[in-house]
């Protein structure tokens, strides 16, 4: 029975592939850093891809390649996608930046969109979400939930996007709890469940009772659950299977509206190289349900902060803020510029340890 289904599926796939040559469909490609079933980052991008399929129906065909290593292999995969006839390609990890630019140079008629990077070209747009807005909420809750005053943070790679998250979470944890400390462990991977679980376990053994993660799998959630009294937050996806505890809230990336709008632009011929950086106000970042494990007054103040960010009244990086080395970064009331944030390579005052260079 299953085998028959498999055969039928292959038949359909072949029919689709040959159909693509016959009609003038728009083909949209996606390059993923992890498997679509990671339950986090790639899972949400793939939900965006499915939304594109559902929205355009027969007018658009999507293709994707998952678990593509960041590096030379990415260039091969992207080139292959172009040769298969993709009109628009989303490369969804920081490490695909140079590969995307290189392939784009060779194929000026194909449109490219690179997530979380900073290099653009006439046919390469960039897009990113303001995850640090969500990190502010997490820090706000974490600072009040911790009893040991040690918050563990699993970093992936020391790139600006991750450092923004650490700084944002720390600033808002310190704001509500002057004794809180952050311990950062760099996993040097986006997705390796065993290593992520190990990092979480190590942090818990060293006294952390809140774990924040900037890696893509749900393994740290499971490690926290096994430990019993450790709080976590969903990363990139809701990870609601670990609610109401240990996962007490989450940052959810919603790429679907952006993917649909950009695909529409290619169909209409209005696509231009743009630089999009949206957050909570635009809906690209949303905050998953804050569960009943969080005290009511903490939940209320967290929700007030979400509302203030959504209304544009509050920026998570508002002065006075000092760098780790003691120099002044932002004066009282000053708001960080996007340029500062996109190149962020320093910790704010109070964080310990060095950023690997």
């Amino acid at each position, binding site marked *: 029975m299953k085998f028959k289904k498999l055969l039928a599926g292959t038949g359909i796939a072949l029919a689709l592939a040959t159909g693509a040559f016959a009609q003038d469909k728009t083909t949209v490609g996606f390059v993923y850093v992890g498997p679509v079933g990671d339950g986090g980052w790639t899972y949400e991008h793939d939900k965006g891809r499915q939304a594109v399929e559902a929205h355009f129906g027969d007018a658009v065909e999507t293709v994707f390649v998952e678990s593509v290593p960041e590096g030379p292999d990415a260039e091969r995969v992207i080139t292959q996608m172009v040769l298969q006839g993709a009109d628009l390609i989303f490369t969804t990890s920081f490490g695909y930046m140079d590969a995307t630019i290189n392939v784009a140079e060779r194929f000026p008629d194909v449109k490219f969109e690179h997530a979380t990077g900073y290099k653009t070209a006439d046919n390469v747009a960039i897009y990113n979400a303001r995850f640090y807005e969500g990190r502010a909420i997490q820090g706000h809750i974490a600072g009040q939930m911790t009893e040991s005053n040690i918050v563990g943070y699993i970093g992936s790679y020391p790139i600006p996007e991750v450092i923004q998250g650490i700084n944002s979470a720390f600033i808002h944890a310190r704001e509500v709890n002057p004794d809180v400390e952050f311990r950062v462990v760099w996993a040097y991977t986006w997705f390796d469940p065993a290593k992520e679980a190990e990092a979480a376990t190590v942090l818990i053994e060293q006294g952390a009772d809140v774990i924040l993660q900037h890696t893509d799998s*749900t393994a740290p959630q499971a490690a926290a659950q096994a430990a019993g009294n450790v709080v976590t937050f969903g990363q990139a996806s809701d990870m609601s299977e670990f609610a109401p505890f240990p996962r007490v809230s989450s940052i959810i990336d919603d790429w679907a509206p952006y993917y649909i709008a950009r695909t529409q632009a290619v169909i209409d011929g209005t696509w231009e190289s743009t630089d999009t950086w949206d957050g909570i106000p635009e809906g690209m970042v949303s905050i998953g349900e804050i569960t009943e494990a969080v005290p009511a007054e903490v939940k209320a103040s967290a929700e007030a902060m979400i509302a203030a960010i959504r209304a544009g009244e509050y920026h998570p990086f508002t002065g006075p803020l000092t760098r780790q080395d003691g120099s002044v970064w932002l004066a009282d009331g000053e708001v960080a510029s996007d340029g500062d944030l996109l190149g962020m390579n320093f910790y704010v005052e109070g964080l310990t340890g060095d950023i690997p260079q």
Partner: protein
Amino acid sequence: MMDLSAINPILLLASLMVAATPILLAAIGELVVERAGVLNLGVEGMMITGAVCGFIVTINAGSPLLGFAGAALGGALLALVFGVLTQVLLSNQVATGLALTLFGLGFAALLGQGYIGIKAPVIPKWPVPVLSDIPVIGPILFNHDPVVYLGIAIIASVWAFLGYSRAGLILRAVGENHDAAHALGYHVIRVRLLAIMFGGACAGLGGAYLSLVRVPQWTEGLTAGAGWIALAIVVFASWRPWRLLLGAYLFGGVTVLQLNLQAAGMAIPVAYLSMAPYLATILVLVMMRAGRAPGSLAQSFHASR
């Protein structure tokens, strides 16, 4: 700004044994396969198939014990595919092994479709009576889940089997010179098929240890390269069981240690800490006089040649 007192050496050593177990299980299986003269590069594929099979059986049967049995069976069956292709149909072992890894990764993702986000039952620890109460040594060595002990037991059995049993001698003969073994009347292909299935079963157990104990959940790509590390450890351990145990513990230990040092704020660049497990394992195992590969490793055998 370093706070080494935050590192608890007892917890560190205990988690070393846990961290090393998946690699150790996969590597000891591959060691037997290679001693029989077969190079199976499909360890990663068999591990992840074992991981998903173990997870599915555990969820449906509610018993982690059955889960591990299912994982071993799943790994062994996948290995049998490799065995039939390379031993009976005489396909190239390197190419077939690589294909097995790719197939295993995709096949596991397919099987695991409905199991993402489901939680597995917790496997209780099995403290060894009396011994686990010894201070310091007790919590390090004798307070683990049963699979950690099983891993060590398999190492010891393989060592005894290869070195001190007639069957082990035949297996080594097949691996060193399959033509001579054949001339003596031993059934080369049968021995190799059994070794390949044992290797698959061990890799499956290692995978299931990840999905049921170490991580514990199912996500695609769960093994994330552990199978390749197991393969490398077999070579660096020069095909000897106890060296393999040392290599796996060293790798697991330095992995856990470097995370601990990072969390404690050690002033060593993280890039060095991250490469430390690989460097330390290779250095130590290479310095201990390198061994010789089995004579017939990766060569196809046919009685007519």
